[in-house]
């Protein structure tokens, strides 16, 4: 239980800092921390496979990609405007609206998710092994699996095309 709260606190805290930071590099690194905490939570949910691929793919590949881009673009700090220092909810325009919306969303989701059915104590036992996942993946969801590979191919091509620099 304690572990849960620790991981949860890390995750939430890191996420909050991600959106509060001005320096994008700090944001990326903090997000990696958040992912680490989530990975721990996955382990607690008897999903070792997911936990591992979370680290490997998310933290290891995607965040590294983000870092590449941030450093490539030499992303400047965000403009510091006067109202940057004020509290999030007091800033103007879409910011205020969006922030307010987020709070509302949180309440809604929370209410939605916890309202239904039993309190949801986990049934004991029945852990699914990696082998079982693999088997399911290649039989029941084989088609989706193949489609996903096409998706990745498309994304690759798209990324190359979009970022292509025109030779003058």
């Amino acid at each position, binding site marked *: 239980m304690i572990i849960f709260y620790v991981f949860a606190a890390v995750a939430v805290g890191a996420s909050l800092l991600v959106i509060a930071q001005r320096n994008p590099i700090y944001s990326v690194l903090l997000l990696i921390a958040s992912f680490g905490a989530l990975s721990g939570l996955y382990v607690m949910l008897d999903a070792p496979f997911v936990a591992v691929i979370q680290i490997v793919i998310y933290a290891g590949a995607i965040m590294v990609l983000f870092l590449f881009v941030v450093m490539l673009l030499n992303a400047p700090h965000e403009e510091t405007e006067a109202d940057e220092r004020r509290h999030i909810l007091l800033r103007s325009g879409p910011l205020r609206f*969006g922030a307010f919306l987020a709070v509302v*969303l949180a309440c*809604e989701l929370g209410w939605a998710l916890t309202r239904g059915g039993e309190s949801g104590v986990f049934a004991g036992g029945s852990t699914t092994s990696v082998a079982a996942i693999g088997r399911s993946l290649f039989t029941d969801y084989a088609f989706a699996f193949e489609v996903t590979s096409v998706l990745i191919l498309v994304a690759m091509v798209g990324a190359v095309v979009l970022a292509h620099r025109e030779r003058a």
Partner: protein
Amino acid sequence: MLLLIPLLPFLGFLLNASVGRRISKAAAGAVACAAMAGSFAVSLAAVWSLMALGPEARVITQPFFSWITSGDFNVAFTLRLDPLAAVMILVVSGIGALIHIYSTAYMHEESDSEFARYFSYLNLFAAFMLVLVLGSNFLVMFVGWEGVGLCSYLLIGFWYQKKSATDAGKKAFIVNRIGDVGFVLGVLLIFVHFGTLDFLEIAQSIAPLAPETAFGTISVITLLLFIGATGKSAQIPLFVWLPDAMEGPTPVSALIHAATMVTAGVYMIGRNALLFSHAPQTLTIVAIVGVATALMAGTIGLVQNDIKRVLAYSTVSQLGYMFLAMGVGAYGAGIFHLYTHAFFKALLFLGSGAVIHALSGEQDLRRMGGLKKDLPITYWTFLIGSLAIAGVPGLAGFFSKDEILFRTFAGGHTLLWTIGLLTSLLTAIYMFRLVFLAFYGERRHQSHLHDAPPAMAIALIVLAIGSVVAGYAGLSGRFERFLEPSFGLHAEEATAGAGLETTLMAASSIVAVAGIGLAVFLFLKRRAAADRLAEQFAGLHRVLEHKYYVDEIYDAALVQPIHIASREGLWKIVDVRMIDGAVNGVAEAVRGGSEILRRLQTGSVRAYAASLFLGVVMVLGYYLWR
């Protein structure tokens, strides 16, 4: 075989309309004349075979195809030949053929394509007219009725570069159309009342009934039909188009507006003689309108200065006689006058055409004179025609006009007879005024004169012979007896006794001679007397010259109000404001709406995202609430 009669001219039309302008004038003219001659020959053959049948059985019916079959309404395209139709087809095709021959010379100066166009229209007209008279039911007749109206418009406005010609064509067509409204309503009522449009069937269903005593359904029907006849045959109130129609080439005036198309109204009444006999109220109206028109047109013709206008008003006047005959129940006499009138009126028009041709286009009587010596053929034939129309004994006009007057008097319509006699006097006066002004006296023009070329001369001579002898066909009532079966009536033999008949004949002859004498005095011997008379009665003279201001009255009372209502009311208000306004208004509304809506596109991504999430929150909230 009956189909050939209208078909040959129709083929002539097709040929001339399609390739006419590429073949020589001689060829185009030959095609048209051959078509008419062929039609005449077939008509002769058809009438011959008709005569072979016994007097009571003289009907040849040839159905061709079933035209409309819809529920109870069955109309077939059937042609029927009976004595009445026989007379008509011989007149149309025979005189038509002569006029076609005449036209080859008269229209010679036109270009190739115009020449071909003229003949194609003329042939088309003949085809439609023949369909009109051969039709066995109202609908086929109406096809011809409308078709001749169309051709009349085309031919009146033949020289379409002249505005006066196109105006006249439009006027003719529109006035005809107004009459046609009445005609169509009449036909509709006939179908409602009788269930059929076939002439024989209508006659059969009405024969056993007694004539109406009050103004009932049959009277309404016949009155509506008569309205159509007033439009087509230029009677009061729809005669105004005929004088203007003189804008067309003279042979057109001769054929369409003298001999054939304008007689369609008379023919129509003759065709439905039994029907009209059952509506005495309408017949009275017909007779009164006829005789009033005759008188009115006669007075106007007295003071006109254009040679063709005089003849036009003369035609209106003679048509009035025919309607008078129909109105008093003398259907045979009316058709008889139609037949003789065709001869001498066509002759007079063609003669005037020869005069105009010789004078290179001059039509004003005041600028003519002394043509007697230079245009002998034209003069002599014209004189014969004038004597015929004046009703001089021995010539065709005398027999037919006298028959009408006799029947009128014998029927007890003394007032109508008096007016008819008065109009005879006027006829003689204005016709001989025309003769004397044109052919006698000193020459008042400078052109080099040549008499009618052979093609024209032949037509003139043949028609002159006809004007003399045609009347003898009606001796001792032969003509009318021949026509009797067509009318389905048993004409009361004129039981008024031979003595009355001779007296009346003498009266008409005296009147005719008196009229000629008056004309001799006023226009030959002492022109000054005529001019003094004109000055003395200057006001009356002016009214007559302006045709009783009928055109002006129509214009002020009908045309201008309609014009103004259309322009101010229908156009400016309904079309521009309401219809355009509605359409444009819709467009404006859409535009205004989109003006407002497009402000949603702020371009700010975050605003879009905000609205996205707002939507999510709301939808989620909604589902949670339920």
